[in-house]
């Protein structure tokens, strides 16, 4: 019998079988493989089989029957192999993702991995995914992050990018975390804003998925009266999958995923895979959230500790100051009377002495020295008083004007001009009037002392960052940083007691009131004193 197919030949010459292609040359000599791989699907073989049956050969029917069975079994085997391949890929993928999820405590990193895994072709291959998280009080599910294209054009651009970059899933997640997360958070802002679902609503599909602890595939959503229409409108698709995220019975949130662009069917296998994935996702998100909260609490505790330490230091300082204040006040008062008597009698004697009396010089010296000691005492007593401020609401402009008016005579004597620039819109300040007036007076006096040849003092008030500023500057010689430092430290230099103590007291008073006091030398020359007072809170 003449056969059309080459099945009966042990060896075939090259080109002798139309089904053997390039790279399969071994089949020309491998008889068994050629029959099993090529002949059973070859139309020529089928023709030979037909011929065999028609000639009455009973083997023709048997071979035909066996051939059908072989084909069927081979098909089943191939489908099982492909199923096993896909499961193996999935297990590998889940293992890889789980490793990242297990080790990361950064919520954004976890979310990047999760959302990339769901939407990437190398992952679950869904077109879009939305994550909704339960709020702290577990009262609402709120839209937190959406990932995927907004339209077909964007989808093509994303897919082209993916093909060009050829990243692994892990690399894609890292790339997403580093370059896309922030923009992606913004991209679906409008959609996410509409996703606020009360967790007390038992019929809502998202809440139901959480309660029943299983994924729910929503189909025909537009026609389904039980569906939350505002959610469906926000999503813009009629088929989507809701996967609950539950960790140790705690409802963490839900993931909504869909194929809005490709309209590909969501298969039961997709549902099952995502459900498996959701366990590790929920756990990772919960852990990262807890870690984030822990970090927040840690920061708060650290801040409280710093504050506590500052307060402790302040208390110690205040106690020391209060003690110093009491002692100095007591000493000052007991010295004042004798000093006054000495100085007073010296002046009396001086007045009675003749112009050429040689004792005049001694008496003048006693009078002057006593006066200087009295000024030192005045400063010390002010320092003690500053430890007990009497706060009230006052007009700072009025205070500055009053002090400058009071010092007019002295300013004139020393040929110092005082220019005021007051902000008339200043709100009232809560201050101890007497103490702040003392500070302004002391600063103006210090500025005058620094300009023995005369000059100009500018007193300015203005509002700045919640403070009322009183800025007093002169055009004398700028003070050195060491001089400023010595000047603003109470009792820093006992040698110069009386000449620099006043400014140090100003600083103490300001700090005690919760105000700020700065002395600096502006680039234009001279020295600048700045008092910062709090605005009266009732007025703001």
């Amino acid at each position, binding site marked *: 019998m003449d056969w059309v197919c080459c099945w009966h030949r042990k060896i075939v010459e090259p080109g002798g079988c139309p089904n053997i292609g390039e790279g399969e040359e071994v089949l020309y000599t491998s008889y068994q493989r050629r029959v099993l791989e090529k002949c059973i699907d070859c139309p020529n073989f089928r023709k030979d089989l037909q011929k065999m049956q028609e000639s009455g050969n009973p083997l023709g029917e048997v071979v035909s029957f066996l051939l059908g069975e072989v084909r069927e079994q081979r098909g089943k085997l191939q489908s099982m192999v492909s199923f096993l391949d896909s499961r193996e890929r999935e297990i590998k993928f889940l293992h890889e993702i789980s490793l990242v999820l297990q080790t990361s405590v950064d919520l954004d990193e976890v979310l990047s991995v999760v959302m990339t895994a769901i939407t990437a072709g190398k992952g679950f291959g869904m077109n879009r995914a939305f994550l909704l998280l339960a709020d702290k009080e577990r009262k609402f599910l709120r839209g937190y992050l959406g990932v995927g294209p907004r339209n077909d054009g964007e989808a093509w651009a994303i897919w082209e990018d993916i093909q060009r970059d050829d990243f692994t899933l892990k690399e894609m997640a890292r790339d997403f975390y580093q370059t896309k997360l922030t923009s992606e958070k913004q991209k679906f802002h409008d959609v996410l804003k509409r996703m606020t679902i009360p967790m007390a609503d038992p019929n809502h599909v998202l809440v139901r998925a959480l309660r029943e602890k299983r994924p729910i595939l929503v189909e025909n959503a537009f026609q389904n009266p039980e569906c939350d229409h505002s959610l469906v409108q926000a999503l813009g698709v009629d088929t989507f999958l809701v996967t609950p995220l539950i960790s140790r019975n705690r409802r963490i949130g839900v993931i909504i995923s869909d194929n809005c662009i490709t309209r590909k069917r969501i298969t039961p296998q997709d549902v099952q895979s995502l459900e498996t994935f959701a366990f590790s996702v929920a756990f990772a998100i919960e852990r990262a959230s807890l870690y984030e909260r822990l970090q927040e609490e840690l920061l708060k505790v650290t801040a409280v500790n710093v504050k506590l330490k500052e307060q402790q230091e302040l208390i110690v300082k205040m106690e020391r100051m209060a003690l110093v204040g009491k002692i100095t006040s007591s000493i000052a*008062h007991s010295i*004042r*009377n004798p*000093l*006054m*008597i*000495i*100085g*007073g*009698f*010296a*002046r*009396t004697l001086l*007045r009675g002495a003749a112009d050429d009396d040689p004792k005049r010089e001694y008496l003048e010296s006693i*009078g002057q020295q*006593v*006066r200087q000691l*009295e000024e030192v005492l*005045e400063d010390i*007593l002010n320092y003690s*008083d500053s430890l007990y401020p*009497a706060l009230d609401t006052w007009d700072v402009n009025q205070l500055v004007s009053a002090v400058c008016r009071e010092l007019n005579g002295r300013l004139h004597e020393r040929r110092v001009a005082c220019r005021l620039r007051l902000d008339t819109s200043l709100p009232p300040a809560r201050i101890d009037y*007497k103490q702040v007036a003392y500070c302004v007076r002391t600063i103006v006096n210090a500025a005058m002392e620094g300009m023995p040849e005369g000059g100009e003092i500018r007193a300015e008030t203005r509002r700045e960052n919640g403070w009322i500023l009183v800025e007093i500057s002169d055009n004398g010689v700028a003070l050195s940083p060491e001089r400023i430092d010595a000047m603003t430290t109470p009792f820093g230099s006992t040698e110069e007691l009386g000449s620099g103590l006043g400014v140090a007291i100003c600083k103490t008073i300001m700090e005690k009131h919760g105000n700020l006091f700065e002395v600096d030398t502006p680039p234009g020359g001279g020295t600048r004193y700045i008092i910062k007072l709090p605005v009266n809170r009732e007025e703001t």
Partner: protein
Amino acid sequence: MARLLVVDDESSIRLLYSQELADDGHEVATAATAAEAVEKIKESEFDLIVLDIKLKNESGLDLLQKVVKERHNLPVILCTAFSCFKDDFSAWLADGYVVKSSDLTELKEEVKRVLAKKGK
């Protein structure tokens, strides 16, 4: 010329004030305690009292209240080493307030001002 009463527990201060105020042409009497001052006010007429706040074991402010109550037209100038009493409302009853200083100019000015107000 006015008749002044200086009340201070410190004898040197009484002496200093007496001399200085006498130099300004006033007739000055002194008292070391509140009781002595009350006695003197009863005995003779004064135009002004210069009163220390911290007297030995007693307060000049109590004496001030007594004077205001009984002799409301007799002016009082408080003269003290403590500037803080200026904010004490019981000190507001006084006609003047001077912080003690070796330079008596401020006290003398205040005496002049208060007497002028009284028409003396």
